[in-house]
């Protein structure tokens, strides 16, 4: 029993040698950084900085090249209008992508919600506010379905939403019978549906309610993501779901709430879409998923989840808007716009990857 006895004394013999060693568990190195490293570090700690810089730079360049036709209150607020729907959908996409998911069904949910708002008013004669509520309910239900499949059945979000995208879009066409509800009819009978098309003018600047909704939505979500427990949990789930679960985050409930909220936001986009188009058209929103993902990516949000700022998404959407309008005003073939957006996407992640090296 001599062995047990020696075990009973404190540490093993050789561990006594530790007494003279540094007492910290580990150390930090704080050497002088080169300017490049400082820049990397700054950009790393402010994830929305890169897209903001790109946005400002492109505004400046195009203002110089094109002049007043571009750099006018009218044109600049027009960009906001053109970006509003993508910005709202992008907010939904951001939430989902922060949880390391992806939502290909956002556009479909948006259109279905707007169709429900329209058809419930015109086909069944419900009062507009009730029809709008029904639209929101449908959006939330679609989002909930996505969330349920992802959280409960643990299916990959890409595949789930690839499936629900087709299902929801098909349901939309079947239900709407492809009928466009004309703007004139809406204006006459249910102007509330077009509410987001109203605007506030300040001189030549035109701010539609849709634009204001987008900005307010993004700011509110920014607050929620950064200053509430729910928001921190969104990041934690995307960062490492297993760790989040073990740390006491109810991952399933978080995923359900994130996808459902995303569905609700898509419904909001659907309402705003009626305001923008005037009419209810079941064929719109075909590219909303790709466009929102593009905004998120250019905005520097990681597709692997857990990193990035929703403000970045807004800047990303605006960058695309600025390029599109400016190139149109310059009069280049629209294909050049797509080409440039492709280059921007790849450029954005390249920079992002470069910045991320600092974390190593």
């Amino acid at each position: 029993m001599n062995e047990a006895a020696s075990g009973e004394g404190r540490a093993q013999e050789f561990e006594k040698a530790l007494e003279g060693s540094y007492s910290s568990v580990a150390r930090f190195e704080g050497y002088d950084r080169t300017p490049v490293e400082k820049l990397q570090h700054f950009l790393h700690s402010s994830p929305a900085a890169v897209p903001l810089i790109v946005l400002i730079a492109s505004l400046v360049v195009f203002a110089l090249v094109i002049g007043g036709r571009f750099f006018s209150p009218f044109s600049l607020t027009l960009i906001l209008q053109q970006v509003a729907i993508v910005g709202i959908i992008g907010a939904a996409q951001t939430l989902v992508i922060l949880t390391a998911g992806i939502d290909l069904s956002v556009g479909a949910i948006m259109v279905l919600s707007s169709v429900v708002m329209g058809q419930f008013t015109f086909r069944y004669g419900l009062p507009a506010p009730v029809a709008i509520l029904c639209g929101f309910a449908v959006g939330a239900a679609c989002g909930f379905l996505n969330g349920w499949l992802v959280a409960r059945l643990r299916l990959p979000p890409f595949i789930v939403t690839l499936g629900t995208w087709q299902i929801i879009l098909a349901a939309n066409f079947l239900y709407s019978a492809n009928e466009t509800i004309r703007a004139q009819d809406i204006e006459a009978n249910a102007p509330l549906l077009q509410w987001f098309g109203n605007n506030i003018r300040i001189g030549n600047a035109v701010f539609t309610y849709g634009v204001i909704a987008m900005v307010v939505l993004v700011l509110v979500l920014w607050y929620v993501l950064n200053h509430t427990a729910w928001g921190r949990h969104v990041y934690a789930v995307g960062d490492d779901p297993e760790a989040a679960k073990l740390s006491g985050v109810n991952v399933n409930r978080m995923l359900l709430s994130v996808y459902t909220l995303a569905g609700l936001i898509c419904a909001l986009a659907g309402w705003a879409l009626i305001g923008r188009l005037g009419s209810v058209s079941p064929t719109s929103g075909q590219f909303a998923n790709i466009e929102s993902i593009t905004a998120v990516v250019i905005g520097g949000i990681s597709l692997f989840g857990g990193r990035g700022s929703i403000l970045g998404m807004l800047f990303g959407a605006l960058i695309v808007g600025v390029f599109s309008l400016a190139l149109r005003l310059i009069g280049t073939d629209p294909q050049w716009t797509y080409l440039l957006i492709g280059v921007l996407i790849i450029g954005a992640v390249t920079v992002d990857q470069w910045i991320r090296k600092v974390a190593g």
Partner: protein
Amino acid sequence: QEVGACLITKTDTNPFFVKMKEGAVAKAKELGVNLKTYAGKIDGDSESQVAAIESCIADGAKGILITASDTAGIVPSVKQARDAGILVIALDTPLEPADAADATFATDNLLAGELVGKWAAATLGDKAKDAKIAFLNLTPSQPTVDVLRDQGFMKGFGIDTKDINRIGDEDDPRIVGHDVTNGNEEGGRKAMENLLQKDPSINVVHTINEPAAAGAYEALKAVGMEKNVLIVSIDGGCPGVKNVEAGVIGATSQQYPLLMASLGIEAIKKFADTGEKPQATEGKDFVDTGVALVTAKPAEGVDSIDVQKGLELCWG
């Protein structure tokens, strides 16, 4: 000061729009109009067209020429442009309602459909009463061109169209079915294959345009049926007329996109100079740019021009 103008087409891949654009660009150069051109990503992409209209407003354009993808959905944007004092002319495809634009320069699409319908009926003669007809249409949202041509064909062929503003409410047993093609070859082939499966005895095919007709022909050829089926189409582009000559297409209603484009540019120039808006053709709610049936096998009682003439007038 230079006059600014915009041309917004459904796509920039359909040869019809490619030519329309070329014609407009040439005319604009001649008249000293500064023209910018835009297009949707695919036929049916209305949002890109909305964005294009807005850019034109921002750009201070005097006039907009548009071939609308979603003829009802685009109306509010058009109104916005007109409110900004811009002359908006619908080319090729009327808006819903047609007077949402200041003017429409287009083929009489109902007539275009009627012509090919009549020709098909006349060519079949007695067999027309047991014909099996496939309709290769455009997009699910039933834009005006699609409805006018589809229903026009029925009218010409002698089918009860029921509601003439709606495709698909007919109950004539000769109709095998309708399918959409997005107005391109790939869609044409797939739609034709699908309808052939539904009923392999199809012997008449109405196609929305010539790219769709080309796709349909490939599908028929693949199953060795190209000889037994009458394909009719609308467009009259040079490739299409050559296809008429080659017997691929039985007859096609020729449209004149270059005319639409040049008339459109002229109208904008005139509007910019004098503030005068174009007047519709007598008895119609649009400016008719004309249509002619091109066929190598003229049929009794249907006016047509021959391939030679068609080739002289064709575009693209």
